[in-house]
């Protein structure tokens, strides 16, 4: 099986030849090319070359065309603040007063140079790999975008105190997110990773999620012209996993703070799981620890398909060494071949 076949098989809740592995590395591409993070993301050619080198070196089952979240902030008129050792931050909020929402219009994807670089990257990657390796595009959900647009505290105030203005903001964001997702799918992305940490149970209670993030996700995913996976970016999701499945998402990226086997019991046959290696402790894993963590995750969630091994955040920190990434790949090829070792023993 090639990577795309492997992924499609597991997403249809059947067992492929082995557990697919998504090593979601972005900044490691800059290290491969010996470039600063800012220089690396300044040209699509750099990211294409970085992703292709990472694919060859680590054998991931996807290409990750995500640059960084702050790129979307830039599309809305915000600043991107680079740092040498991690993903860029979004600068000051563009919505400094809630009243600005009343006149807010979505940016056009065609007008944003940064977004165009992502589309160029996806087109070039598609030309390189065709239909053998899935190319993952990324959008921030309309419900999570306001953290960058307004600042988190102002957004929580809006959420609790101005529901009508919140609704308008979500609709404006939705127009942008749908256009942005479909542009990526048209450019060459195979699927969209819909980052929605604010919907996680770590950030809002289920009742609030059902009135807000859930409805937005249902509307957005229905309008995407391709499959979507929802990522909680380290946030918990156990209380809303069945609700997430009802949004039409094909997979959910889950937290290292949750019991993967318990999540699998809810998800089996309904929605695939993506996760849940701890990207923070991964920084100091030994190769043996990497083996043990990979084996644990596969034993918890691998049976029957519907599982892609990945980190729990949707981006592996730059501080994780190549040796650990190689060890994770080795472990998947050792413990992730179907029928799984534990199943074979039964």
């Amino acid at each position: 099986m090639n990577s795309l076949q492997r992924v499609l098989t597991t997403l249809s809740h059947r067992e492929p030849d082995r557990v697919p592995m998504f090593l979601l590395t972005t900044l490691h591409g800059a290290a491969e090319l010996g470039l600063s993070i800012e220089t690396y993301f300044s040209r699509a050619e750099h990211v294409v070359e970085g992703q292709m080198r990472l694919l060859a070196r680590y054998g991931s089952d996807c290409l990750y065309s995500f640059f960084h979240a702050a790129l979307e902030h830039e599309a809305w008129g915000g600043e991107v603040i680079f740092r040498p050792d991690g993903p860029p931050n979004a600068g000051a909020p563009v919505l400094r007063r809630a009243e600005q929402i009343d006149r807010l219009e979505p940016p056009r994807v065609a007008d944003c140079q940064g977004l165009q670089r992502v589309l160029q990257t996806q087109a070039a990657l598609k030309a390189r790999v065709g239909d053998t390796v899935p190319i993952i595009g990324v959008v921030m959900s309309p419900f999570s975008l306001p953290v960058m647009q307004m600042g988190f505290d102002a957004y929580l105030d809006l959420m609790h105190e101005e529901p009508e203005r919140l609704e308008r903001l979500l609709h404006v964001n939705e127009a942008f997110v749908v256009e942005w997702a479909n542009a990526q799918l048209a450019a060459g992305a195979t699927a969209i990773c819909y980052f929605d940490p604010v919907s996680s149970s770590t950030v809002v209670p289920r009742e609030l999620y059902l009135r807000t993030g859930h409805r937005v996700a249902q509307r957005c995913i229905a309008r995407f012209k391709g499959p979507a996976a929802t990522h909680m970016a380290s946030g918990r999701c156990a209380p809303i996993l069945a609700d997430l499945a009802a949004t039409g998402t094909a997979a959910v990226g889950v937290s290292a703070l949750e019991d993967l086997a318990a999540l699998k019991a809810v998800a089996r046959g309904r929605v695939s799981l993506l996760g849940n290696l701890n990207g923070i402790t991964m920084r100091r894993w030994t190769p043996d620890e990497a083996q043990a963590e990979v084996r644990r995750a596969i034993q918890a969630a691998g049976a029957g398909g519907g599982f892609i091994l990945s980190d729990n955040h949707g981006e592996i920190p730059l501080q994780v060494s190549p040796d650990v990434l190689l060890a994770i790949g080795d472990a998947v090829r050792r413990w992730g071949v179907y029928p799984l070792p534990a199943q074979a023993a039964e």
Partner: protein
Amino acid sequence: MNYPVEAFSAALQDLDRVRADTLFLGALAQGTPIQAVEQLVVPALQHIGHAWDDGSVALSQVYMAGRFCEALVERVLPPSDPDRKHQPRSAIVALNDHHLLGKRIVYAQMRASGFELFDYGRMEVPELVARVQADRVRVLLVSVLMLPSALQVRDLRAALDAAGQPVRIVVGGAPFSLDEKLWREVGADAMGRHAADAARIVQAWMEERS
């Protein structure tokens, strides 16, 4: 005296301000303002903090509860109140990151627990060390979201030690929650698992000292 901690905590989680206000006023009628803070507000915020840590309460509830309690306590225990005087000079900062919610929540909960502290906003290590020295800070609360910022606590510790500044550092934020060994690795003195933990840790240090 029995203070209705569970009922107050439930009202805060439900964002029922009227109910929370009524319970707080009832506590004030039973004793002094500082007793109401220490025996009703602080335990309720601790309860909510633990519930966030185990996943049963969401960050939005923690934030709203802290903000509401901060305003309640401000009303009855102004910054000049003598009950606030015996605290170590404390400050809170978001180190390097441009993500300020964690700091905002902890600041609110510290003030709601009767503490006064400097709010340094967002700073990088050199500027922070200078401010800590100038303000003669003894307890520094450091909030981070990103792993590289968490790792910079090591540089902060080294710089404060080199400056001969006797400061205890409490760290908190996602990287520390996901890696329980990280706070020791970077040289912090304690790690807060949730927003209300900072007040508990500083209170314990005050009791050690007295």
